[in-house]
């Protein structure tokens, strides 16, 4: 069977980075979803951009292939004009970050209709096609959205608008680069279903992700990339059920799965929150939330974005005062936050050593010992945070929180921005630290699979309220609330 896109032994070298894709072969067939997975830095995005002729725009990039054909046309020596024609009509790219990919000053109509405008489609025809694309992208009531700008839309809606603009021109090949990474679990599931339905309508979809669970949900075939090489390729079901290559196995093993390994034996209560309420204007960010936390246990807080999780975290650490209710600390514990965006919370002019030294209180471990505790080499002490990888930054943020020898850690989405293997490393680190120091942790996440892996008890938030709470496994086995059931469904078929 011939693919719409046929690639044999494609290699890409970039100036200053060397060969980032080496001898990758794959094909994209109409009606199928081809998943490409790998850790960050494996070359996924470069590969995706090369398939659309975008890497070739850089005169210093070297692209070679034995075969690179779109619908039988040899594209190896195609000029930018030919690629542009292809991108305008037959292939398109859906990017990861809908917030940055959409022009904040343009309306949905202008944004989605751009491809049509470029191709001089008659205006009368444009509107119908835009509405049709929006509807196919799963945006109900598309007509009312046309005049809105991206700032007025939610994250999930923005991603759908991006997909709509990718399909409006009738593209037969859709390359989606991490389209769900920035989205809530429940919203991500719907976007995945949308990609699946586009394939069912006859498009060839190339789906790039670090999320193996997403691949499991929608991909027919899968290619596993490692350092630019395709180390394993085959039908998705077969690769995921019986992985042959160690990299695939490592990726699969890193997917958070099952309950917490060493359940805590909770000690004394260290923190209670009673009837916390916080208003922003007339909106209730947190509405009558109560919880208790004991030494040595982890309390998971889950919910979609906007459900009040981060505000609750700020109330717990005292960074914000509640309008009603109170947070009480018992036995004067030290509370430390591991923030959602570690890079922003580091002074950009300080080295790792300075960051850790400034956070130390009393006679604790030295900054070198702190780095060792979070599994980092002392050689990183003299780096600035901007020159660390995402996983390293998160570890430094944890080391900084540990510097004050805390009793309570509040972790706000500590692994959401990380790929699965890095995520697994951080989760393991946290479990080890808790076991050693009997830390009490509040672990905030939108990913229930992750929370299940680390939390003894869980609180589910919706619209500022804690709607369900209990032992994690009990909640998982018998959810009371609709929102909990959706979160469980979104967290994977386990």
């Amino acid at each position, binding site marked *: 069977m011939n693919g719409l896109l046929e690639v044999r032994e494609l290699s890409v070298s970039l100036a200053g980075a060397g060969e980032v894709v080496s001898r990758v072969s794959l094909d994209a067939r109409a009606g199928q979803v081809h998943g490409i997975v790998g850790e960050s830095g494996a070359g996924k995005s470069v590969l995706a951009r090369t398939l659309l002729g975008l890497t070739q725009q850089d005169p210093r990039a070297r692209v070679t292939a034995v075969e690179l054909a779109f619908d039988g046309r040899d594209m190896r020596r195609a000029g930018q004009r030919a690629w542009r024609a292809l991108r305008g009509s037959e292939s398109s790219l859906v990017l990861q970050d809908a917030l940055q990919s959409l022009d904040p000053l343009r309306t949905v109509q202008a944004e989605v209709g751009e491809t049509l405008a470029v191709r001089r489609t008659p205006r009368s025809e444009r509107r119908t096609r835009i509405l049709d694309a929006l509807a196919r992208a799963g945006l109900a009531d598309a007509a009312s959205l046309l005049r809105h700008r991206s700032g007025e839309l939610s994250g999930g809606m923005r991603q759908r608008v991006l997909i709509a603009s990718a399909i409006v021109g009738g593209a037969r090949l859709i390359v989606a680069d991490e389209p769900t990474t920035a989205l809530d679990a429940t919203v991500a599931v719907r976007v995945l279903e949308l990609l699946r339905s586009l394939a069912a309508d006859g498009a060839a979809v190339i789906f790039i992700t670090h999320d193996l669970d997403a691949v499991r949900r929608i991909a027919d075939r899968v290619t596993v990339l490692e350092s630019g090489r395709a180390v394993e390729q085959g039908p998705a079901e077969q690769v995921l059920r019986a992985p042959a290559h160690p990299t695939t196995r490592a990726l699969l093993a890193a997917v958070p799965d099952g309950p917490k390994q060493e359940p805590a034996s909770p000690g004394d209560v260290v923190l209670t929150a009673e009837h916390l309420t916080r208003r922003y204007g007339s909106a209730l960010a947190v509405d009558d939330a109560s919880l208790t936390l004991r030494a040595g246990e982890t309390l998971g807080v889950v919910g979609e974005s906007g459900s009040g999780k981060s505000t609750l975290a700020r109330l717990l650490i005292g*960074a914000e005062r509640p309008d009603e209710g109170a947070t009480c600390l018992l036995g004067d514990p030290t509370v430390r*936050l591991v923030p959602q965006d570690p890079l922003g*919370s580091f002074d950009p*002019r300080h080295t790792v050593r300075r960051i850790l030294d*400034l956070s130390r209180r009393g006679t604790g471990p030295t900054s070198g010992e702190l780095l060792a505790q979070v599994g980092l080499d002392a050689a990183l002490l003299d780096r600035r945070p901007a020159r660390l990888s995402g996983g390293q930054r998160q570890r430094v943020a944890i080391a900084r929180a540990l510097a004050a020898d805390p009793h309570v850690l509040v972790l706000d989405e500590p692994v959401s921005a990380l790929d699965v293997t890095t995520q697994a490393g951080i989760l393991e680190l946290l479990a080890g630290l808790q076991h050693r120091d009997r830390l009490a942790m509040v672990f905030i996440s939108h990913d229930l699979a992750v929370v299940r892996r680390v939390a003894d008890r869980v609180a589910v938030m919706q619209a500022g309220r804690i709607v369900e709470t209990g032992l994690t496994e009990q909640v998982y086995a018998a959810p009371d609330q609709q929102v909990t059931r959706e979160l469980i469904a979104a967290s994977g078929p386990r």
Partner: protein
Amino acid sequence: MRSPGVSASVAAGAVVLILVAVCAPALLAPGDPLAVSPTEGFLAPSLAHPLGTDESGRGIYTRIVHGARASAGIGVAATAIGVGLGIIIGFVCGLGPRAVDAALTRVVEVLYALPTLVMALLFVAVIGPGPTSSILAIGLATAPGYARMVRTRVRQVARSDYVAYAQHEGVTSTAAFGRHVLPNTLWPLVAMITLGIGQAIVWVSALSFLGLGAEPPSPEWGSMLNAGRVYLSSAWWMTLFPGLAIIATAIALTILGRRLSKG
């Protein structure tokens, strides 16, 4: 930091040369910039006088080298005043009470709306001409620009996540100010200051050209331009070379400033 690149290296070299001319002009030009020699007036560039001579037979080259102290020195001094005032106003606006910020910011914005040179002329008109008053005038005229920059930056840093984290850790506001706010506000200014000095030198020369800065016999680039203006058709070197000195200094400092702001 990356390798400096050709233009930045040339610019750095030029700035070093200017610094030498400011600190020890005799090293580059041993002659006396004020020594009159009526027989040698209006000589075209030659070996004895590389850049020619003026109406009184003074070497243009010697005068340009010795004029660096007046032109560049005044530029630096004026920038120092502008930046100093700007930092004080900027920090007061950025961290002070809201009413103070609102009032000061309005004043700064009105001043900022006037072109710098017009403002400088205004100050000169009030305090009278002369080298000292041109320093003051350019300094005062550039202060609103720096104040706006500092204010914006201070507010940005003060609201940053890392300052919030320091508060979470129980760091006092004074300590957080010294550790985070001050360095992160002032460091980006270094590049802006380098750019600003080049600009200030141009303005200082402009004031001198108009006869409002340095007094005529003293070697200053702007007043040299003015002196040569009358003889432009017969002795072009009298205007060309001082003009080039101003342009080269401003460009060298601008390139350096751009390079610094890229980090």
